[in-house]
């Protein structure tokens, strides 16, 4: 009997303890937040070379540099500063808004102990770059140069041809896979090569325009030979996918070199049946800074919005709107994080290449008003820059 009582007591005790244990007494109600890492996993702490010296960075572009090159360089420098490679006392916001002047500003500033730039940017031409190639190769082999950041398809292909012993990054190329700089976004094909891949930028751009303007019918202006770099096929495909009717006005590349191209383009627009057309989209190489005022004015007069494929300056000169899926500054910033990983010993070819830009919208308010475009609060809120 005594034994039975003891067993019963022990059972009750064990049950009570188990219940208390399971109940999690005395715990407070807490939500634990553990941020999972993003798919890109960057080591964002500044570091120096193994010998304690600062890393040396070379910058390459196809001369003469265009606005996108400057924006990439600016984004890259700002990214390096936000990580800590460039001293926070360097006021990059006050740096000049020009590629060469900005580069000079970097060279002449005390960037700190982590990085330094080559005294001059490497500017290649379409032809004859042997000297530059030789110089880069020597510096790379002697350890004077640690990494090269390039903007443009040609610089990317040129650097690849040099077969350098150091890594290089191409942070701006229309299609680095199609042009052969890398094998694919998932596998660059070379552990020292990295290139930024913006997936389907033109298709996404068209989708953005369509959702903003509710386009039912559009007129594309294309240059036939620029199918790859201007995304002509991507536009057509996306229009079909979204059930948007489209017409085309197409020129050959040769025609664009003619001095009367601007007049021809304007005349072609005047001759084209614009009835029911909700907008005209000008692909790369058609509308430019020079012809933009006259063409956009004509289209505004008949109430048709002029949409631009790429180039803030074209909108500044008259084009009604440019919704760009090429965020050049962010390309530079993203490249700075890839460079940080490389400095920490990771291979360039192993870094994630895919980058989706958030849309960058520029609008010419005068043109929009002349066109009779509805300028809503939410549109103005999402526009990054306005021109008149």
């Amino acid at each position: 009997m005594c034994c039975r009582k003891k067993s019963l007591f022990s059972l009750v005790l064990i049950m009570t303890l188990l219940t208390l244990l399971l109940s999690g007494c005395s715990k407070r109600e807490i939500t634990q937040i553990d941020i999972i890492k993003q798919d890109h996993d960057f080591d964002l702490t500044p570091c120096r070379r193994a010998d304690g010296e600062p890393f040396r960075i070379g910058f390459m572009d196809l001369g003469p540099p265009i606005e996108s090159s400057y924006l990439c360089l600016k984004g890259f420098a700002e990214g390096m500063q936000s990580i800590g490679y460039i001293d926070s006392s360097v006021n990059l916001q006050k740096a000049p808004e020009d590629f060469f002047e900005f580069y000079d500003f970097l060279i002449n500033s005390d960037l700190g102990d982590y990085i330094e730039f080559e005294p001059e940017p490497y500017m290649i031409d379409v032809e004859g770059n042997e000297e530059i190639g030789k110089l880069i190769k020597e510096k790379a082999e002697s350890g004077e140069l640690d990494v090269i950041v390039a903007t443009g398809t040609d610089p990317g292909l040129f650097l690849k041809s040099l077969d350098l012993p150091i890594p290089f990054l191409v942070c701006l190329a229309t299609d680095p896979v199609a042009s052969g700089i890398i094998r694919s976004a998932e596998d660059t094909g070379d552990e020292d090569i990295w290139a930024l891949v913006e997936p389907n930028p033109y298709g996404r751009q068209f989708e953005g325009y369509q959702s903003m303007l509710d386009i039912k019918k559009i007129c594309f202006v294309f240059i036939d030979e620029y199918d790859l770099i201007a995304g002509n096929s991507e536009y057509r495909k996306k229009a079909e996918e979204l059930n948007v009717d489209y017409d085309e006005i197409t020129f050959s590349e040769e025609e664009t070199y003619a001095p009367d191209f601007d007049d021809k383009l304007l005349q072609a627009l005047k001759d084209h049946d614009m009835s029911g057309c909700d907008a005209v989209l000008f692909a790369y190489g058609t509308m430019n800074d020079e012809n933009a005022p006259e063409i956009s004015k004509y289209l505004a007069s008949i109430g048709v919005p002029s949409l631009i494929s790429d180039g803030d300056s074209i909108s500044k000169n008259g084009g009604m709107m440019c919704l760009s899926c090429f965020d050049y500054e962010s390309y530079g910033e993203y490249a700075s994080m890839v460079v940080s990983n490389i400095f920490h010993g990771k291979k360039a070819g192993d870094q994630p290449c895919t980058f989706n830009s958030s849309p960058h919208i520029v609008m010419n308010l005068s043109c929009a008003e002349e066109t009779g475009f509805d300028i809503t609060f939410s549109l103005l809120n999402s526009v990054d820059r306005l021109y008149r």
Partner: protein
Amino acid sequence: MKNFFHKYYVLFIITLISAAGLCALSFLTILDYSFDNEEQLIATCNEGLIEEIETSIRSGKTLSNYYGISDVLKRAGDLLSKGSILVIENDNNRPVASNTDLQSFSIDSEKYGVVEQEILDKGENTIGTLFTYYDKDLVRQSISHVFIVSVIGSLIIFLLIIIACYFFYLKNTDSDTGLIIRVIMVGIIIQGIFLTVNYSPEFEKAAERSVENVASYINSSLTSILDKGVSIDEISDLEDYLKTKQEENSSIKSISLSNTIPSESADKVIVSELEMTGSNLLLVYNISQSYVRRNVLSMVLMFVATIVLAVIVMKESLSLSEIIEFRKSKSFNKPEKEQFDDVAKVIRYGNFLSVTFDYMCLSFSALQIKEWNRGIFSMSPQASAALSISICSMADLIGMMAMPSIGKKLKGKHIMTVSAVILVISNALCFMTTSPLIIVIMRFFSGLATAGIKQSRNYVISQGYSSESERNANLNASNTGVIGGILCGMGLGGVVAGVFGYQTTFLVSCIGYILYLIFEFFCVPWKLLSENNPDSIIERESGNLIKRVINIFSSMSVWKAILLMIVPQYFLLMVIVCLIPGRIQSLSLPGVVLTYANLLNGITGLYIGELAYKKLITKLKSDVKAESLVLITGAVSMIILDIPFIPSAIMLISAILSGLVDGMGTPISTDIFMGNMVIMENLSDTETLMIYSVIGSAVMSVAPFILEFCEKSRIGMLICSILIAAAAIMLVKIRRPGRKPVKK
């Protein structure tokens, strides 16, 4: 002085609890109001952020690969109150980014409130959720000074109540308890008025703060657009934008653009100057006085409801002093009339206590599990929450079916003691745990123990009388105790859960069951009950129970009583639980209508039902006719819910009629069932009551589904009402067999 406190200490304790309840309730109302304002502000300010993220997602970004997302959140966080934390979770509920620099941190739900906003992709599918945690302490601090004033003021009023009571006690040598209660009521009403006056300006201030914050956000949004070089006239839909912002924030009556400050306005106005316009443009925000008034009125109505509850608790507790006095007398445990009269009081107060603490925590297990957002095993939180409720009912049903055989082996006192101890332990564990599984298990044990409490209650009813009138008094007392308990339990549970959190209701229930155990242990004449055999129980209980149950269910008259009386009666009891709340919700009536519907239903059942029951029986001279009339009243309570005008009044009238059905119908139907000759020949009173409860529970578990259908279908409601009315008419045709004389 000593005698004075000795006599009225129970009332003063209840008064103190009521005063504290009013204080807490008023603070809670203004706090909720302030939280609402803060949450509306967050929702407004986050719109830009969500739009930015959704635009990026639509253009190809993913939440798991969104470079710079933390910076985007940091920028958005700057627009919100200090200390706000923004977290984005992906569609797998994993946090992907926050505006803090920390990779791992914890959020204390006591300290932070949360606003959840969905992030949608271009196909309008949810791909993530933005959680904004705001610092509740900051909101509390902004109104803490008023709370301190309200506590001090309430304490002074409480002391004045005691002094006034003492004054009347001294003046009135007959020591009229009714007068003392009236004095206390006046005191509590004065406290309610004081709290209303104290908090009203704070409602206005909170509204002003909210409008100022929204104004600051709108100004910064507008300024950022104007900074881009746009003139204000060029924004085509500015008026629509301002109207949307006004609609999102209840504190704002209207927003307008003006060049001058309005000189006279019926509403309070906040004026905000737009920078960068160069034309001194002003944004004028009219504060919605009706929104402020609505909230003050809601608080006052809640005060009234709480005061009524406090008065009910006081009134029910008045018998406590008499019960304690009788316990001390020599007549206790003696087979005398006074003792049997006292049994009815003990049953009523015991039921009142047990049901109050049962209903106080009944629904909060589910709400607690939902708040934790955790399920058990592979069940969803919602399914686990529902399980915690249904498992309790199932255990109750299982327990009730097992009780007749347990009742043979264990004495009523032992069943009560074991059940109360289980309820104390299970409620204590429900309070302490953070595990949904433990809550579900403990609710199962609570269900079993509730069946035990019912068994002991039935034992006291069936053993504690010497005449049929005493038995009816016991049944009536049991029913009124249950109704009062349901009424106060639901009301007080809501207040405790609102002020201290859902789990605290289990702590209060745990303490309550200790009080119940002490009360039952000492105030029930257990010795007398065990010796009192009013109806040859031993003789009837000696046979095989299953055989006896089969006997009763093979009788047509029993089936008639079940189908024409018990089923409609219990079905109608669920009208206030399921149909009226559902109707109030579907008609979008204010929440206070439901509070008052419950309150009126309870009061009608508790006080008017009892009086009406006595008058009806005297007048009709037939309990079957009386029950028939009750069922027709129930059918009317359902059918009037379809009347398309003055919906709030209709809900309240239906609740009152439903209360009458409970207050009158339950004792009458129980009495008729117990008086059935076949039942009397086969079952003891305790067994009969248990069978009656099992049938009732079965009906109540099915009724919600039928009433849910009735709520959605007018035809369903009509059919149910007609069926109940038909049952009522057919019931009159049942010839009730004469009762056997009660043996002594």
